[in-house]
């Protein structure tokens, strides 16, 4: 392999006090890939994302981003959490612009792109609304736009649709696919939903129960764009069965 992976985790371990949360966890994510992580609750998915982003430091092993070891928070990564965590005093566009302001760049230079992203995410007409004037799904779309503003080399998503109802969740999944098709950022996506993982990703990493490690790496060869039709594809059903078996057998 010539090109360095965007992320490579090598034998990563994490202890909290006496508890081993993650042990001997290794995987790679390549440029432009959409990789999903699934696994039982408490197996260390969120912890893995925090270590990859540099927000937390592993107690053993190494994580590299673009070939260099991650020692502090990555400066060109972005994170989307389960909760949208918008700033209540900022309107939609200003919330999206926060990323640029935090990097110390003038907001004005990014206003156009922020508006474009908002339209891409279906927020047209809501650019001047405050978070409390938006629905939960819309707030989460704002937080996705905020993460995409500076075209991050790595987008980390931790159950971004976990707080939404089933219908909105499915719609948001397809919307994320549409946005991603246009931007092609490298994505590491944690989810509890097997079908969401299959519909969105190129590859699914299944984690074992605690202490978490990567148990299986399942490629998803379904052609894009995927839609409601994909759900009826027999290969979708087979994949879903495989992933479920991998999660459930220890």
């Amino acid at each position, binding site marked *: 392999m010539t090109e360095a992976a965007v992320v490579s985790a090598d034998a990563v371990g994490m202890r909290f006090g006496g508890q081993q949360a993650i042990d001997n966890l290794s995987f790679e994510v390549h440029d432009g890939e959409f990789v999903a992580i699934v696994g039982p609750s408490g197996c260390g998915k969120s912890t893995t994302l925090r270590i990859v*982003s540099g*927000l937390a430091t592993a107690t053993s092993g190494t994580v590299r981003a673009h070939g260099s070891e991650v020692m502090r*928070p*990555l*400066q*060109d*990564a*972005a*994170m989307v*959490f389960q*909760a949208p*965590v918008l*700033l*209540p*005093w*900022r309107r939609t566009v200003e919330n999206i612009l*926060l*990323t*640029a*302001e*935090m*990097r*110390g760049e003038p907001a004005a230079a990014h206003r156009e792109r922020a508006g474009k992203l908002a339209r891409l995410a279906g927020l047209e007409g809501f650019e001047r609304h*405050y978070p*409390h*004037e938006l629905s939960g799904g819309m707030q989460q779309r704002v937080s996705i736009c*905020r993460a995409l503003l*500076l075209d991050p080399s790595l987008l980390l998503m931790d159950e971004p649709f976990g707080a939404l109802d089933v219908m909105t969740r499915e719609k948001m999944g397809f919307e994320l696919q549409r946005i991603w098709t246009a931007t092609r950022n490298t994505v590491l996506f944690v989810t509890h939903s097997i079908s969401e993982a299959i519909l969105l990703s190129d590859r699914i990493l299944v984690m074992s129960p605690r202490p978490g490690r990567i148990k299986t790496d399942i490629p998803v060869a379904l052609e894009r764009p995927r839609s409601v039709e994909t759900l009826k594809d027999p290969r979708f059903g087979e994949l879903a069965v495989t992933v479920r078996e991998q999660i459930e057998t220890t």
Partner: protein
Amino acid sequence: MNRVTKWSATCASAGIILVAWETLVRRFEVPEYLLPPPSAIWQKFWQTLSVQLEEIAFTAATTLTGLLAALVVGVLLALVVTYVEPLRSIVLPAFAAFNGIPKIAIAPLLVTWFGLGAEPKILLAFLLGLFPIFVNAATGLSEIEPDVIDLARLSGGTEFRIFRKVRLMNALPYIADAMKVAFPLALVGAIVGEFIGGNRGIGQLILSGQFNLDTPLVFACLVTITVFTSVGIGAVAVFERVFLGWRLSQRRR
């Protein structure tokens, strides 16, 4: 209920109370030094207007100076406990203990130490205003979802940028709320200071009214103080409207 009906309801009930007060005081011939009728208070208020203004100006100056000092010191202390972890365990218990002392009780001591001038009044206003400002500012600066801070770090946010664009903005409504509490408290401090010593301020005017059994003057002073308090609270409300508009629209829901 819309604003106009709310307003008229308030005015109407105030009017009813005043009329009832006036009628009852006259009907039972209550002596003026016990409870003057509103008309006498009103008359006194206009008669003594120039003295009133002069004295409230002194009181306002000491109150606002103390309040401003409380704002500066309170926010600085809040910054210290937010950013300097080791000092937190010293400052917070010290403050809790300090707040346990009824500050009014040390007012005579302040007069002993600082004399009869403006200083003990300013100091009392400062001491009374300090606690709510400090507590609210510290809460506003530190109670931020950790996810927000993580996000900011990942986009390259420095501590200073996070302070300016996240912590400070988060603290502003808390500080505005604190000002609404601290302002009347500082005024209490200033007036108590005037009661205890000196010959200036609305507190002294109240004392002279009481001494001369000029109860209408005492009530006229209360009217002046109420007007002053309303102006102060109104100023904070204007600040909120201009700078914290998002919050008002959030509350209205």
